[in-house]
């Protein structure tokens, strides 16, 4: 660094001698060189500050991206929510199959019924119609299961959107989760996940303690 400064001072000295003649002293040259160097110092400092700001901006961006990627909760999605959504879809397929079979069996029984005894035939038809109504309740349960799956898909979509365009507002998700917690909204459970009617009856009557 010393050589360039010396060259700079020599150039200043040569220029001053041409302009002012031999009355220019070394002190004049050094003073002028110092002023010039101080001016340049300011330029270098401002350049450093600009570079520093840019680097800081890049570091902040990387930090935010890391937080977003962390917020995707890949493990939660992979290990819990997506498998749970798959199980809900399996339960939907099973429920619709069961309901379809029940309804078809009733229809077959009615078609095969002996109408020679009208009273007996009507009693059989009434009974089968009740069974069909009961079987049709699958639509309610499957609708709620589908809502759970859609909820998971929206959860994934929201997190991917945050990475791509940052347009998603997390507030809606938090509000929805808080509502579910406050109003105890779990939805239909998978096999073994909830209580059966007899357990509920026992709990209501106080014959069993809550687990």
């Amino acid at each position, binding site marked *: 660094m010393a050589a360039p400064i010396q060259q700079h001072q020599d150039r200043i000295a040569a220029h001053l001698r041409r302009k002012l003649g031999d009355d220019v002293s070394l002190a004049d040259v050094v003073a002028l060189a110092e002023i010039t160097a101080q001016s340049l110092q300011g330029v270098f400092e401002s350049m450093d500050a600009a570079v520093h700001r840019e680097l800081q901006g890049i570091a902040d961006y990387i930090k935010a991206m890391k937080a977003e990627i962390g917020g995707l909760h890949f493990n939660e999605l992979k290990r819990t929510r997506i498998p749970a959504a798959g199980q809900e879809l399996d339960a939907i397929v099973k429920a619709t199959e069961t309901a379809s079979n029940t309804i078809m069996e009733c229809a077959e029984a009615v078609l095969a019924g002996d109408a020679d005894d009208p009273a007996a035939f009507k009693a059989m038809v*009434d009974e089968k119609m*009740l069974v069909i*109504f*009961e079987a*049709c*309740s*699958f*639509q*309610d*349960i499957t*609708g*709620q299961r589908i809502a759970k799956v859609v909820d998971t898909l929206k959860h994934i979509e929201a997190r991917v959107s945050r990475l791509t365009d940052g347009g998603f507002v997390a507030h809606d998700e938090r509000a929805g989760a808080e509502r579910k917690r406050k*109003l*105890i*909204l*779990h*939805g*239909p*459970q998978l096999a073994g*996940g*909830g*209580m*059966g*009617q007899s357990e*509920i009856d026992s*709990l*209501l009557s106080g014959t069993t303690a*809550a*687990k």
Partner: protein
Amino acid sequence: MAIDLSMPILVVDDYNTMIRIIRNLLKQLGFEDIDDATDGSAALGKMRGKRYGLVISDWNMEPMTGYELLKEVRGDPGLAKTPFIMVTAESKTENVIAAKKAGVNNYIVKPFNAQTLKTKIEAVFAE
């Protein structure tokens, strides 16, 4: 205690299919005066305009759930004694306990059959 088959019943569910099913099951049991609502707030409005002998309600509805409806009913001196049966897919222990604490008369988990509905209604009026 013999159940008054002429009593008005209010069925509350956000799925029209389920309303239709319960309505038909109730008709099979001999009930004729059956109204319906698709959420708790609509049900509350109807209950403040007509005296119902029984409310059969789902839990998970918007904007007002059946659980909120139950608490509103029990908190209203004019409605507090209305028999209330929850019919719902919510089958966690905390749901049943919460409903019991809120004053539910009976609790049926979906899917259910006509016999279960009949038994639970009879149990409510036998109390």
